[in-house]
């Protein structure tokens, strides 16, 4: 199924109002509000005609112009062999997204990474700690306005 068909199917079967977005080039995606994300994710995984059993990638994004943070979920079904890109956007000052760790175990580390590098808090995650940078690191490096700290434990980070 293509993104359009999947959106149509979801809207028909579950009465949503999802709408795919298209860009100049590349893939299209659907945007879901954080309040219904978990329900939609569960439906996507468990519905007989969808069965997205594989979460290929989960990435955190900082949209500087809109003062928003976002998460992109790349889903794939090994059974029906179709793909879907799902996005969720939250405001920068309250970046809370429900965790999908209980649905796809692989989200565990990916969500920790998104928390570490972009600063998105995942509600319901079993151990939301920094994963790549040390625990006492300052700031979230992949934000566009990130300023590098001058020294870490008395070792200068500059040249």
């Amino acid at each position, binding site marked *: 199924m293509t993104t359009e068909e999947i959106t149509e199917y979801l809207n028909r079967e579950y009465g949503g109002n999802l709408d795919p977005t298209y860009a100049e080039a590349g893939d299209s995606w659907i945007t879901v509000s954080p309040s219904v994300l978990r329900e939609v994710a569960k439906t996507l995984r468990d519905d007989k005609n969808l069965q997205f059993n594989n979460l290929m990638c989960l990435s955190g994004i900082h949209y500087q112009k809109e003062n928003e943070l976002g998460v992109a979920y790349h889903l794939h079904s090994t059974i029906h062999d179709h793909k879907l890109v799902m996005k969720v956007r939250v405001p920068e000052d309250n970046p809370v997204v429900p965790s999908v760790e209980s649905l796809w175990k692989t989200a565990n580390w990916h969500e920790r990474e998104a928390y570490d590098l972009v600063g998105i808090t995942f509600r319901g995650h079993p151990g939301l700690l920094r994963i790549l940078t040390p625990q006492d690191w300052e700031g979230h490096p992949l934000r566009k306005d990130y300023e590098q700290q001058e020294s870490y434990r008395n070792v200068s980070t500059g*040249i």
Partner: protein
Amino acid sequence: MGLLDKKYHDSNIIIVSLESALNWARKSSLWYEQFGLACCAIEMMATAASDYDFDRFGIIPRSSPRQADVMIVAGTVTMKMASRIERLYEQMSEPRYVISMGSCSNSGGPYWEHGYHVLKGVDKVIPVDVYVPGCPPRPEALLEGFLKLQERISNETIIEPRETEQESTEEEKEPIEVE
């Protein structure tokens, strides 16, 4: 060493031959610490394997810093790793040498500009004897670095302490002065 360097201010025949014997022994069995960080570690393994064969020079990998003479810093040193490297270096017994292998450990290399999590040169935390350029260096280049190190060791005297030792004592003094 402490006994001799206070007794003789100038080298004499006994010390000179003792020196050369010591240096010869030291340089012919440089056991290195098996400690790979990144891409360069793969080239370090390739150097230790059959095609280039480290063992011809008496260079043998050791897994423990206590048994090692040389530390090859092979790869990118990150901020998280910097304190570990410092600790490993402290565990090595004197005389100890450090070879910095590849651009990353020389000066941050490709990551010197935007690499927020990369230490810009391992010489910020431990003294380095030989810098081997390359990204990653060829196995021959690493061997050449070892030959350079051997050259350095053969010119050592037991009367004067090594440069790096002097540096480290100076570093230890510094914070006291600040206080």
